[in-house]
């Protein structure tokens, strides 16, 4: 792995996308280019993963000072916490290009842009840099939904954009506050997460800043009750965009909490963990219940995705090694299962020209291969042992038990709730008598089957040999938790004799 690998992975797609935007090429060529770039990134991702040393340190670090006056720097790095998220962002993209062949040039360009931006957000270790990528990755989504979306796309677009940008701008204020506080305490400007984690935030505004961060991430994840943009956006967006949103972008929200909020706001985080985990659980149950009432498969999956994100968030808020590792693992697992499910729905829409559940039926007989793949992905998403979904959920529930029994019990109900709507949907769509729309439902073509096969195998492989992944992320999780607990105690002690000067210094 060469030195500027991460920058390369970030800017190859971005530059490729820009080039596509301006180059006069046909859609076929555009798709080819996108595919090629995605494959290159995939290869690099895999190589990075294989070469990744199972320690807690940052790897492939790059550091360039950028705005010296404010200590903003262009610094990248990967550690166990970001590894799997990065994998999700790097590995899954070729699917999109191989499955959806009938898009315009601009669409592929936007896909490339969003991939680069997301990888950037994942790899950034400087808060401002992260923020920049974080904002940038919304724009392609905005255009993809708005230009290529469904009938009701305009309100959906406006909603997701305003909603998300509102959150991120609040975060902007908060992160500047953090940086300024760092300048006050240590006398030099820096937004590097390593420096900021040494902060001792106090005073009235700290809690507000904490919640500004949390709201930004909660909207992206989305956490209850900030999820209301999600159903419309996921439903109206073109399937590949939905895939990007649910499989990767939402995960970056969780990742942001782990990477930035916990180290900086450890005291506040510890103080509010219970409330936050309640929000996560509430979202899980709420969206799970809402899913059962959906008539539209995509919408149902949207709610189920939100529901699972609630679980992942709970794993973070429990803040012990098992739960955290579980969440990190589940991030990848959920990316594979739910992402693939969305792609499958896209295929069904292309074939049957409908998304309404009652229009389908009996597909299992028309398309056994498709049905099998779908079933595997679905079982993974309901967390069946032997699939990728189980490990994460089990670890999260295990950790939740340590954190608080009521939370754990509520978290556990996902085992039941998830199964309910999924089986209900599976029955209507794949079993029973074939509807007239699905009467001659075409099975996966060999190319499609080959495109999906790796992911299906990945789902099973992650379920049977999870240690290959966990061994890489676990040290970082250990370290994170250890830091959190130690610094939490020390700062708690320090708060005990907080000097009044600092208190009134805050405002």
């Amino acid at each position, binding site marked *: 792995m060469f030195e500027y690998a991460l920058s390369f992975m970030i800017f190859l797609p971005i530059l490729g996308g820009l080039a596509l935007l301006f180059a006069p090429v046909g859609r076929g060529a555009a798709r080819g280019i996108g595919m090629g770039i995605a494959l290159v990134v995939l290869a690099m991702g895999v190589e990075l993963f294989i070469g990744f040393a199972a320690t807690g340190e940052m790897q492939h670090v790059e550091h360039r000072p950028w705005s010296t006056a404010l200590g903003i720097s262009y610094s990248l790095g990967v550690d166990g916490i970001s590894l799997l998220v990065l994998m999700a962002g790097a590995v899954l993209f070729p699917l999109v290009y191989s499955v959806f062949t009938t898009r315009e040039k601009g669409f592929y360009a936007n896909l490339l842009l969003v991939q680069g931006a997301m990888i950037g957000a994942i790899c950034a270790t400087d808060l401002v840099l992260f923020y920049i990528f974080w904002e940038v990755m919304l724009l392609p989504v905005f255009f993809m939904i708005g230009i290529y979306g469904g009938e009701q796309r305009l309100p959906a677009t406006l909603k997701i954009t305003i909603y998300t940008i509102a959150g991120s701008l609040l975060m902007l204020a908060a992160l500047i506050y953090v940086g300024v506080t760092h300048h006050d305490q240590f006398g030099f400007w820096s937004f590097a997460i390593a420096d900021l984690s040494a902060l001792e935030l106090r005073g009235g505004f700290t809690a507000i800043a904490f919640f500004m961060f949390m709201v930004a991430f909660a909207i992206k994840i989305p956490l209850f009750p900030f999820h209301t943009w999600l159903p419309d956006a996921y439903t109206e967006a073109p399937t590949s965009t939905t895939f990007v949103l649910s499989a990767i972008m939402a995960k970056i929200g969780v990742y942001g909490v782990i990477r930035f909020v916990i180290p900086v706001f450890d005291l506040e985080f510890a103080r509010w963990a219970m409330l936050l985990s309640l929000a996560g659980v509430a979202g899980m149950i709420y969206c799970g219940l809402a899913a*059962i009432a959906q008539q539209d498969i995509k919408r149902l999956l949207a709610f189920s995705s939100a529901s699972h994100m609630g679980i992942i968030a709970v794993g973070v808020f429990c803040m012990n090694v*098992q739960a955290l590792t579980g969440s990190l693992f589940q991030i990848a697992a959920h990316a594979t299962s739910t992402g693939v499910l969305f792609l499958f729905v896209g295929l069904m829409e292309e074939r049957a020209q409908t998304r309404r559940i009652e229009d389908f039926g009996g597909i299992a007989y028309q398309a056994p291969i498709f049905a099998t793949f779908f079933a595997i992905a679905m079982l993974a998403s309901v967390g069946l042992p032997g699939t990728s979904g189980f490990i994460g959920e089990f670890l999260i529930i295990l950790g939740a*038990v340590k954190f608080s029994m009521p939370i754990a019990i509520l978290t556990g109900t996902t085992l039941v709730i998830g199964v309910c709507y999924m089986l209900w949907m599976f029955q209507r769509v794949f079993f029973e008598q074939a509807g007239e729309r699905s009467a001659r439902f075409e099975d996966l073509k060999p190319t499609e089957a080959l495109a999906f096969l790796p992911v299906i195998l990945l789902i099973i492989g992650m379920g049977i040999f999870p240690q290959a992944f966990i061994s890489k992320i676990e040290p970082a999780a250990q370290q994170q938790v250890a830091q959190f607990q130690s610094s939490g105690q020390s700062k708690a002690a320090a708060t005990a004799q907080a000097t009044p000067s600092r208190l009134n210094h805050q405002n």
Partner: protein
Amino acid sequence: METTAAYISLIPLFPLAGALLTGLLHMFTCRSRKLPESLYATLGCIGPLLSLFFALVVFVHLKGMPAEERFLSHIPFTWFAVGDLQVDMGFLADPLSSLMLLFVTFIGSLIHIYSIGYMAGDDNFGKFFSYLNLFLGAMLILVLGNGPVVMFVGWEGVGLCSYLLISFYSKDRDNVLAGNKAFIVNRIGDLGFVLGVSLLFWAIGAGGFDYLSLQANASGLAPAVGIAVCLLLFLGACGKSAQIPLYVWLPDAMAGPTPVSALIHAATMVTAGVYMVARFSFLYVQFPIAGSVVAWVGILTALLAAIFGLFQRDIKKILAYSTVSQLGYMFAGVGVAAYSAGIFHVFTHAFFKALLFLGAGAVIYAMHHQQDIWKMGGLKKKMPKTYWTMLVGALALAGCPPLSGFFSKDEILFSALAKGHTGIWIVGVVVAGLTAYYTFRMIFVVFHGQPRDQHAYDQAQDAPAVMTVPLIILAVGAFFVGFLNLPGIFGGHLQVSHWLAPSLTESHPHVGIGVELLAIFAGVAAFAIGIYIAYRKFNEGAPEPEYQGFARFGYHKFYVDEVYNAVFVQPYKAFGGVISRIFEPKVVDLPVRLSARLYRWGGNAFKALQVGYVRVYAIYMVIGLSLMSLFLSQSIN
């Protein structure tokens, strides 16, 4: 030694490989052309037979070892390890699991063979065998797993397969609904299981999370936590083994093909709960309260199911309720810490219940998928093999000495009595009578008397050999396996119990011969009374009775399904609808929409202020000016 240990992890692999093979074959070919059934049959049956063979090897090997260190464990790889949590994908063969292993593989193989005949001509022949193999593999993982988490893999796997097989005829909505019900109810139990396991880990799991280490650390368990763990685990068992309040799925599960009912919903899967409790005997003995909860739930389930069984008209439903009832017995057994008795009943029950189901299957097969006993009758002459084998099974089930059912049931009731659970014993005896009654009601109505449907009767005949041979084998088993655990009073010395002893922590009470005799006598008496009544009522082709009063209530299964539906299912769906249609837009999203509307409103207001008259603009300026002057004039002394 080492090689034998390695065999253990091979055993589940054979069926799984078979499942994969047949599944892929079917998946890729079913659209284009139909492969010969013989191919699927061979592929499907090799796996179980191989595992049966290796199971025997392992068993023999264990037998050759001294009783204390009779366990073989093999750990292919570490499954996942996070912090203190270390979960190996490891397999353990000790007396308990080896016994389960034996009869699971044995009966599994038989039923595979039987299915060749039963499923002949079905479009999804290959799919069926793939599922059946998958199930067997999962069941073996469940049995062989060396720790709770690995067990959970099999635990959920068998649940999945039971879902797939119950909704096998998935063109018919009701079958699929039955499958969903089974899966969901099982999931409720699994929730308990997972929570229990997690709790167990935080309590004593840090020093290794397999049975042996847990057993070693079990003493360090606080009572509250321990009881919670036991009850949560038992919730899981309730789901899997159809105990109150989660038994409702099992009768519906009869929607699946009959071999499935025989294998999964009678012989093996449903007994997993009992096996699990026995596995955790080292916990349950520590906390007798939890044990007695288990026992009482079990015996009450037995009673309830027996009552329901009295009034069923569907031959498979009758058997299903009897299964639930027998499971209740088993839990009563393990509940009163008579683990070997419970397991032994599992063992015998596997034989005679499988036998009964397969026989019923033969009958249904002969009657062209007619399952209503009130449409049958007098089949004794038409299908003697089926009749005699089923008679053996029925006798065993009813607990007729000296058949297998008698000994195992007697062992349980005796232990209950001996360990002072008199109430449980009394209920048990009553249930024994009921069992005898409804079992022979079925036998008499189906096989004796006059045919009620002449047309079907004329075409009825014994099934082909591929189906009858397994029946006969099972019948022999059902007759004789009881002697494996012959109590001392009959001159035996409880081989099975002694065999199981190393892996169970239980104490055998030493009570007077009188108690033992009393137990035996009561059992026999109950059996006799039950059969006598059944004989009087149904022997000579009684007409279908009209159920009134309590009978009607029982005929409708106390309306439990209806109640569950009204209390859980409907509210759940309604709630979902309310949330997504009303709550989401009107409440959660309200602030967002409201703020947007306010913003627009304010915009229009300010738009209206731009009147376009320059003088008005000047006035705005002056207003601002004067307000600011007010603001400033405070700051001047």
